[in-house]
């Protein structure tokens, strides 16, 4: 299945907005592990997932055509 990835801030420097095919991945925990292998820089930064505009607080199922946002914290002012 295909999902859309949207990323922000420093994360957008190494994961651009894109559609990815995740045939074997069914939930956000597995996707997190997959993305941290594919983009190792992700492991060194704090971030939060949102699936279809909803912040992810616990492992959640992913469906075809879902949108996953990856958001780091900003502190600048």
């Amino acid at each position: 299945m295909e999902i859309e990835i949207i990323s922000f801030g420093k994360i957008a420097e190494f994961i651009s907005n894109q559609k990815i095919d995740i045939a074997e991945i069914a939930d956000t925990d597995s996707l997190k592990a997959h993305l941290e292998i594919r983009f190792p820089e992700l492991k060194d930064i704090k971030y939060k997932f949102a699936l279809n505009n909803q912040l992810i607080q616990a492992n959640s199922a992913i469906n075809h055509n879902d949108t996953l946002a990856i958001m780091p914290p900003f502190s600048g002012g």
Partner: protein
Amino acid sequence: MSAERYNRQIILKGFGEAAQQQLLKAKVLVIGAGGLGCPALQYLAAAGIGHLGIVDDDTVSLSNLHRQILFTTADIGKLKTEVAAKRLQEMNPQIGIVTHPIRLQKDNILHILSRYDYILDGTDNFESRYLINDACALLSKPLIFAAVSGFEGQLAIFNSADNLAGSTNYRDIFPVSPGKGEIPNCAENGVLGVLPGIIGTMAAAETIKLITRTGEPLRNKILNYNLLTHQQYIIKISQANNYIMPKTVAEFLNMEYQDTCEAPHGYEEIDAAALNELRQQESVILIDVREKHEVPVLDKQVFTQVPMSELAAFITKGFSQKHVVLICQHGIRSVAAAEALQEKFGTAKKIYSLKGGIVKWRDYFMRA
């Protein structure tokens, strides 16, 4: 109240006299009179917020002026709170403005926040942001959160319950503060002046909407804004249960908000005088961890260039000197580098980071 001053918003359908009265009665505290705080303060003062507080312990510097638009070149060196209060009072003499020229800390923040109804966080560091978040949650004060990074901004309202759920706070998104150097700040990363102008103005709009119950303020939502594409992405925040939040004043006072550099570490943060002394020692390597394009350029005979992107390879390769001094532009990346070296070498080498970086000790580097 002069109705004529506010006429254009009073005649606005869905706003009116009642909303204007609510603004007049509101007590709003803006923390940080910087890139976000300046435009927020201007619009809040102009809109007729009756009691406006300003917190900032800093003075105006030249590199502030491209985004902190309350200040002029002649204000350099003056306290931001004083200059801001004077300008805002000239713009609107009908409102009350109180200045707090201090740095908020555990022991003074509750006292100050308790005098206000709405808090706008326009600070520039995670230490302050977590302190303000926890204090607002403890006091149940609505918090308008605004932050920028590069060409992007974030905007949210915390501690204000919507109809569907209870209220959320910043720790529901990011339970603990990032480490030093993990997320670059504006001084490290740069920022286009107009970006905090946009996000700060949006924060003022959210404050006004919240006070006057107009429209749909970003309660329990965080907006991500991209200046380059004008793309906006709103994320709904739900409550998490994976963090510690102080529930009493005593618990709050026991929390740790200091930057990680205040805690004891295997490296030492030094000033330029200590750097100068170290340079006289034997077996010293001075490492400039900035990227190669950054200025001022230091004497490469004296300062070994190892950009952060090449640091891991440099550490793996190893070097003979016993004392290592790490230097960067503002003393933030050099701390991250010191931590990396500490992890590899432990007590085998003495590791130092120049606190405040080249910018702070510019005179020293220009002489050196």
